[in-house]
Every structure is written in structure tokens, then in C-alpha cells.
């Protein structure tokens, strides 16, 4: 595994953890995620 990919995996892992924490603890993030998801889901279900 080259160093660039290794760094990318660490970046991804950190981003996923930060995303989960943001959804759990930052006001407004949950609402934003849900609104965005609802929009795409609505389009896909048509």
C-alpha cells in the first residue's frame, strides 16, 4: 500500500467519525442531512 492511499484511508476514517459526531452533537446537522436525504429519496421514488 503506497503512502498516499494509506493517508487517504486515514482521512476517510477521520471524516466518517467526524460526520457521526457532528450528526450526534451539532445542532442543525441532523436536520440538514435529513432534508438532503429526503430530497434525493423523493426524486428516486418518483
Amino acid at each position, binding site marked *: 500500500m503506497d503512502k498516499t*492511499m494509506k493517508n*487517504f*484511508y486515514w482521512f*476517510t476514517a477521520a*471524516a*466518517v467519525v467526524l*460526520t*457521526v459526531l*457532528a*450528526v*450526534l452533537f451539532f445542532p442543525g*446537522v*441532523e*436536520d440538514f*442531512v*435529513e*432534508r438532503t*436525504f*429526503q430530497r434525493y*429519496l423523493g426524486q*428516486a*421514488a*418518483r
Partner: protein
Amino acid sequence: MKFIKKIIIIVFCLSLIPIAAVATVGAKARFDDGPNRVFSGGPLIAGDLHTGPEPDWSFVESISTIEMQLLDPPLSRRIWTAEYGGKVYVWSGYMGTTVGRLWKRWPSQAERDGRAIIRINGVRYERELKRIKSGEVLEGITAAITAKYPSQTTRTAVEEGGVWVFEMAPRS
């Protein structure tokens, strides 16, 4: 080949970020007393339980959404409602598509076991969901729906199975 494999890995890894966000919102909602927008919430706990005579449901005309929980499974969702002829109704669109049926699972669950609790203005009502598949009454119900919401629900759509309509009857 190696390059394509790397691209696939990168796309997969990046897609984990929105997937984690959506999964977290969905999981968090399960522990709430009531639903949020898309994801099912936990059972409706708070609020007085209505007892006594059947209410005059015309008051729901000024209410945009209600909270509805099935007893099995005990999950709640936010849903549109309309009154017609002294009875109150809920419905689900998108039932004619695969994505819609995967998204909207409560209608088939309600068809199996219609026992439900709804919460309106902080008051909980015990109801029994009864699906209406056809009949003249659908003309009036769909007219009430389209008058209240930006919806194009028609009797034909209901009878063809694209929209599932339920009467929220009193529980016997």
C-alpha cells in the same frame, strides 16, 4: 486496471461519509419520542391519551402533519392527514415503485396489523388503520387530499395501487 481499482476504492471510501451521516440520523431517530422528517422515530410516549366520544376530526384541516405509530412494529412517522365525512384518513404515495415500497414500509405493516396511535397537538388517539382500495368514497377522500396538500392523488391512483389510503377508525 490498477488505476480503475484505485478509483473504485476512492469512490467507495468517499461514499462512506454520507452513508455514515444518514445511518446515524436514522439510528438516532429510533430513540426519540416521535419521528422526524424521513426516518421512523420511537414509540409515542408523551401526551394524554384521548378517552371519550369520537372527536370532531374537522380540526385536522388546519394541521399539516400528524405523528403516527403502529403497535407492530412500534415505530412512528410524520404523516399527512385529511378529514372527509367526519372520518380521518392517512395515505402513502410512491407505492407503485420499488424504491417507494422499500422506503414506505408502514403501509404493508399497517395492512397486517392496523393498530396505531396517533398524536395531534400533544394528544394521543388509539386508532385502527383500515385500507380503502376502491369505491365512491375515494372521490371525496382524494378531493379532500388535493384541496389540502400539493398532491395529485386521484381515485384511479388509489385503485391502481400507486397510493394506499387508510381510514383511521376508532379501535374496537
